[in-house]
């Protein structure tokens, strides 16, 4: 079965794809922290910051349709938070955007900033996962000192989430194939809980079989892997360019634009 893998473009080859996972991860974390820490009045500068991940996405040949589709997928969670702002803060405020001046409320201003920050940080996150193989990202996180147990859990989650989705889809299909009339909410809930139970039991069975397969190959509780990550000159160049971009925007553009 085919799934909408978030890392489906991570197997391409480009200068961005070839960068070390650790460098890209650290850059994404710093970038996100800086964007989130921007004041709510700095909406215009968010556009400047958006250039960074946008360039990465273009250099990595990631289709923008794919990027915005994934932003839209996650957006409901943030939109609920953002759209609640105008409801509780109605203090009037004037916003200058270029030559135009708008009269609005602090709530709406905060709402726009939250949405803007969300889009820009999502661009950075998608740029990271679309240009980095998940296995390299996990190896990079391990090298950066993230606890091994968490890395193993993330690895298993990513490996088996698709198997679980497949199983769930098979169960749903079997149910649909035998449902010929509206059963009512109560009956539907009963069926849904039975399906969830079945999925849960299958997951436990799968986990037991994986455990046997691991022990069959000598696993004794120590997780051993070979890291194939290597920092190159291009990684240093990227690091310098990234630092110049983020720092110069923050320390020079923020006071000017505000």
């Amino acid at each position: 079965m085919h799934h909408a893998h978030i890392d489906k473009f991570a197997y391409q080859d480009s200068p961005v794809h070839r960068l070390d996972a650790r460098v890209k991860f650290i850059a994404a974390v710093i970038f996100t922290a800086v964007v989130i820490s921007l004041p709510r009045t700095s909406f215009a500068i968010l556009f400047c910051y958006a250039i960074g991940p946008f360039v990465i996405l273009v250099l990595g040949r990631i289709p923008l349709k794919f990027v915005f589709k994934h932003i839209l997928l996650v957006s409901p969670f943030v939109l609920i938070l953002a759209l609640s702002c105008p409801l509780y803060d109605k203090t009037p405020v004037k916003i200058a955007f270029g030559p135009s001046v708008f009269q609005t409320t602090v709530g709406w201003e905060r709402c726009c900033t939250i949405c803007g920050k969300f889009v820009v940080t999502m661009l950075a996150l998608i740029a990271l996962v679309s240009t980095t193989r998940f296995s390299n990202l996990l190896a990079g996180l391990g090298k950066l000192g993230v606890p091994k147990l968490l890395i193993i859990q993330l690895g298993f989650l990513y490996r088996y989430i698709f198997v679980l989705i497949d199983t769930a889809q098979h169960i749903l299909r079997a149910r649909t194939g035998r449902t010929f009339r509206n059963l009512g909410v109560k009956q539907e809930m009963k069926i849904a809980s039975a399906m969830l139970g079945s999925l849960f039991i299958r997951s436990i069975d799968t986990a037991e079989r994986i455990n046997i397969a691991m022990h069959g190959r000598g696993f004794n509780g120590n997780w051993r892997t070979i890291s194939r990550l290597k920092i190159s000159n291009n990684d240093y160049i990227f690091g310098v360019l990234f630092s110049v971009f983020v720092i110069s925007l923050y320390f020079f553009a923020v006071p000017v634009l505000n």
Partner: protein
Amino acid sequence: MAKAIEIKRFSYKYPDGTIALSDINLSIEEKQKVVLIGPNGAGKSTLMLAMAGFAKGEGEIIVNGLKVEKKNLKKIRTVIGCCFENPDDQLFMPTLFDDVAFGPLNMGFNTEQVKIRVAQALRTVGMEAMAEKAPHHLSAGQKRAAAIATVLSMSPDIIALDEPDGSLDPRNREKLVALLKNLPQTLIIATCNMNFAAAIGDRAVLVDKGRIIADGEAKEIMFDTKLMAEYGLEMPAMVNDTSEL
């Protein structure tokens, strides 16, 4: 010839009390290619699990001279490489390379030795170009071959495969037959597919309701019309020509 596996009066019950294996006596010689045949639920998979020490019952199992018991399990699992029915259970690492390297790393080989073993195992199954692929990006046939590579990289003396032909199309099944026939190790294969069994096995062991019903030369057992019919098994269409599997 030396014995690869010797099972003496082995019996096993599931935790709910159901008898899975009853009074099994079986002796497998080195380099033999043995197929465990029988209907679904006959006990073939449990017998394979017992050989690798995953199902502890009554009686005795000896693998390459080592008795299957707790103190020997680590050594035994380097001697007998088990490949389970669903390759998704076998391929649990983020990349194929990591999966094939998992066994050798646990055996204590250094990085360079592991890389050589991974490359050799992947070359044997024809997947050397896919080392960096994630298992969920592989087709069913590729997953099956990759699962075998995870065992080959450990260079076991005995390879035990549970239903390796399951969900394979004829072309991939044909490739698998060619691969398994050329492996120098002792092979134990559990399968319900008689064509597949006949193409690989020198010896067949018919299992039903946890007991060994017949044991002998593969062709002799699988072409016994009465025996096959009695245990709900089909006769193989051909034995030597793998193109029509």
